[in-house]
């Protein structure tokens, strides 16, 4: 396996071949392009959006705070790239603002989940014994109960005003460690059994040194893959709970935009641009992440190609 960290400059030749492999990998290139495009949609796209998604006063020349029927459900036009909703708000603005916020929430949730998974997985995999049993048991417990239901439970109990983006990100992160922990744990266990670890033991390495200097560099690439996975599923989760009205209450997110779309009756009114734009952004975002993940797996370790693991 070629460790990812080599990308960051341990050996020039390896870095080049690895990058070369990546950018000749079709899946990675396609995935990366789509991902970049969607990120650009969020950031460059917001240049064409209105500054405040909540305001309705942008489209009438004089500006108004009243939503009247002639401003409701407008079809796409140069002023409103995706038309307006039942509250006369600009759908395009909601899409790009929501996209940006959801990406942030998912990125944070992914960091939290991956960090916990890395720490717990390394402890469990390396130390073994009681600690391993406890961690493994908890992970298996959490995997059995779908995290989405626990999440619903928590956000259901939390009063609305406390349901901030930060809280939602943290809760998603805190709930998403079990699968990744098991992956890290098994990676560590595999590496622990490797001859080079025995060699390190014979050289009087301490456990900490073995864990951080010998094993960690070798599993860093997997941890990165896990992060991409967590990031991707956090997007799904945010949109899911947001769609039914239990997402963050302090910001416009993709989930919130979904919820507004459902509440606004986009389907029955046949406003396809509304629900198609939201859905396609989510689908292509996760699809691009999947392609990136598959491409990276392919380059890191061809043997991994057929591994299916539950995250």
């Amino acid at each position, binding site marked *: 396996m070629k460790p990812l960290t080599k990308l960051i400059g341990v050996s020039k030749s390896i870095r080049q071949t690895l990058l070369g492999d990546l950018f000749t990998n079709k899946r990675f290139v396609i995935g990366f392009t789509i991902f970049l495009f969607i990120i650009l949609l969020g950031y460059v796209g917001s240049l064409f959006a209105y500054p405040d998604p909540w305001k309705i006063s942008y489209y009438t020349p004089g500006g108004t705070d009243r939503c009247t029927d002639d401003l409701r459900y407008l079809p796409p036009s140069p002023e409103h790239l995706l038309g307006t909703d039942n509250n006369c708000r600009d759908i395009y603005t909601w899409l790009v603002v929501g996209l940006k916020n959801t990406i942030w929430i998912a990125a944070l949730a992914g960091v939290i989940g991956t960090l916990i998974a890395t720490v717990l997985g390394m402890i469990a995999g390396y130390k073994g014994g009681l600690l391993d049993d406890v961690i493994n048991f908890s992970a298996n417990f959490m995997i059995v109960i779908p995290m989405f*239901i626990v999440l619903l439970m928590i956000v259901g109990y939390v009063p609305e005003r406390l349901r901030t983006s930060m809280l939602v990100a943290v809760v998603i992160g805190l709930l998403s460690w079990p699968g990744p922990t098991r992956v890290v744990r098994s990676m560590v266990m595999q590496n622990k059994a490797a001859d080079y670890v025995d060699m390190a033991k014979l050289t009087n390495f301490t456990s900490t040194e073995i864990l951080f200097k010998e094993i960690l560099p070798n599993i860093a690439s997997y941890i990165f893959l896990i992060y991409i996975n967590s990031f991707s599923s956090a997007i799904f989760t945010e949109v899911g709970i947001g*769609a*039914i009205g239990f997402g963050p209450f302090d910001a416009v997110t993709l989930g919130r935009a*979904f919820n507004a779309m459902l509440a606004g009756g986009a389907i029955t009114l046949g406003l396809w641009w509304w629900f198609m734009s939201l*859905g396609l952004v989510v689908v292509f975002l996760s699809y691009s992440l999947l392609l990136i993940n598959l491409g990276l797996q392919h380059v890191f370790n061809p043997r991994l190609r*057929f591994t299916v693991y539950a995250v």
Partner: protein
Amino acid sequence: MVSSFQRYIINKTATYIVLWFLAAFLNFLLPRIMPGDPIGRYLETLYNMGQGTTGGIVQVVPEAEKLRQQVIEQFGLDKPPYTQFFLWLINFLRGDWGYSLAFPNLPPVIDLVKQYLPPTLMLLIPSLVISWVVGNYLGAYMALKGGKVDKIGLSSMQFISLIPAYWLIIVLVFIFGVYYKILPVSGKPGYMIPSLSFDYIKALLYHWILPMTTITLIGIGGWSIGMRAYVIYQLNANYMKYSKALGLPQRVLGRYAFRNAIIPQFIAFAMSFGGLFAGNLLVEMVYGYPGMGSLLSMILGRLDIFGMQAIFTFTATMILVANYVADIMYGFLDPRIRRGITEVVE
């Protein structure tokens, strides 16, 4: 002398009982540690309800403190926490799940579950079976065919499995409900009262088609990807190369691979129930299909704590049972994979 297999079963059973206790405890604990005043919220709900209907409850409001005491007593909230927990647990096991605040007539939660669970099972079980069978068939087909079929098949299955179910149903509703107008745009079977009457079931079936199609399609994506991976793994196994060298025909080899690859899929079948249940909740909520998802969305929307506790605990129970079955199957089918090798020190 207990055989090690019996020990495995006892072990698993004990584990799942502990897990169930943990899940129940979590459900008991969460509403209690959350900020806010559950009793206050309960009273508030009663009060708001009272305003709309009879004056009965409104009249008690001046005596809110007294009412509060009454509620505390009724739910045993003045007792020590562990007593409360066991009281609640015993009541749960007896089927006494409290009264739902989400409905004006305060129905027993268990009655709600009895009413909303069958439509959900009617959705989940056939969908699981169909997607499992079709998915496995497709997955094996892709793996055995290889080449272009495999490449295109895999990519499309990956794409399908990534579509959020709650969005796919929107698209399907738009196509078949709004555009072609052949299927209902909402899962609610009109204003009919849920019952076991023929008319109601007919109406339900009519509203069942779209969510059923949605979760089955997405399920097929997931199952076929898994099956394809297992079959390819089997095809690359050493015994396969050996059999090939012996000159066994391709068809026979394919059947071997399929037979071995299907074993883990049996286990996955039982294990997938939880995830499917969770995913389906959203579909139901979005489409308004009168199942557990819709029930949950009403209960969540009206902050019905007793409903939430009962339904989450019930859901956890169902999922744990499914996983318990999967684990036992696991022990039967292949005991070696799970933990591999453990050392004994005499």
